[in-house]
């Protein structure tokens, strides 16, 4: 496939992620911070997000499985996940965390369990989307092309 076509695919794909609400403006901020001296900045930060989130989701599963649930602990983990997803622009994950925290506040175990499932789902979807994005970028770079900047009117 020609580089131009892959570039077009990347632009369309990225735009669709914004339209569908997977990404918000913060992701654009991240891209703006990437340059020749820091060419992998976005990938590095997103990778940190994957590692961090995986750990947090594991902790949350364990915490909600306890005979007596420590809601403060659960809330602390969700707060952290909300923060990191917000920092990279993973909007749906962030929103799922906001809903989750509401159930923590009222100590509703069923609600929390449902939210955990929802957060996990959104996380895996987001992870998938990011991986596709980076794969397209790698293809472009491997073919000697440059990664197109997305212009969005926010």
């Amino acid at each position, binding site marked *: 496939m020609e580089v131009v076509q892959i570039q077009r695919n990347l632009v369309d794909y990225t735009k669709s992620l914004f339209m569908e609400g997977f990404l918000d403006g*913060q992701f654009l*901020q*991240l891209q*703006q*911070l990437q340059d020749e001296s*820091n060419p992998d*900045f976005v990938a*590095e*930060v997103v990778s*940190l*997000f994957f590692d*961090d989130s995986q750990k947090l989701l594991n902790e949350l599963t364990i915490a909600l499985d306890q005979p007596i649930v420590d809601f403060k602990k659960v809330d602390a983990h969700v*707060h*952290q996940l*909300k*923060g*990191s997803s*917000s*920092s*990279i*622009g993973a909007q749906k994950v962030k929103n799922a965390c906001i809903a989750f925290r509401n159930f923590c506040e009222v100590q509703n175990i069923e609600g929390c369990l449902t939210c955990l499932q929802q957060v996990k789902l959104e996380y895996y979807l987001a992870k998938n989307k990011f991986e596709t994005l980076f794969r397209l970028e790698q293809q472009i770079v491997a073919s000697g092309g440059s990664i197109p900047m997305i212009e969005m009117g926010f």
Partner: protein
Amino acid sequence: MGMATQTQFHVLAVDDSLIDRKLIERLLKTSSYQVTAVDSGNKALEFLGLNDNEEDEERNSSVASDDQQVRVNLIITDYCMPGMTGYDLLRKIKQSSSFKDIPVVIMSSENIPSRINRCLEDGAEEFFLKPVQLSDVSKLKPHLMKGITSKETKSNINKRKGMEEIHSPDRTRARYSELEVV
């Protein structure tokens, strides 16, 4: 290379989140600041050479020469951190004779007016809502310049996501006239 130029500002960033540390570091470096990032209030105090013990501080400041003492021009800290919060750190800095004049900026993911007010009233120069943007970092310059010149900063009106703050010319307190619901 040569010696660090005197005009390059050194910012100490404090955040327990690795992702946010990476982000703030990049934001600050993009704006040509030298950055040291630590993951707790205690590490920040350690870096400054400030101990809980007043005695130690006096000893440190009398013994340390300009070469040994770390020069920090601004501290930017997350609010929510385990152990010492950003607010606790702010208080410690402002209570310290050696460091009370270092401008402190607080960051938080939560838009809680009472929290914001308290930080600003207790000496924070700015309060940024997370995720911090390049436009926020550009607000740091005047506070950094204050340390260099004796000119007073012009009063300016800042709007930030539903909060309205007004910096008075004699840079004492920020006041919130009303809250805008976004």
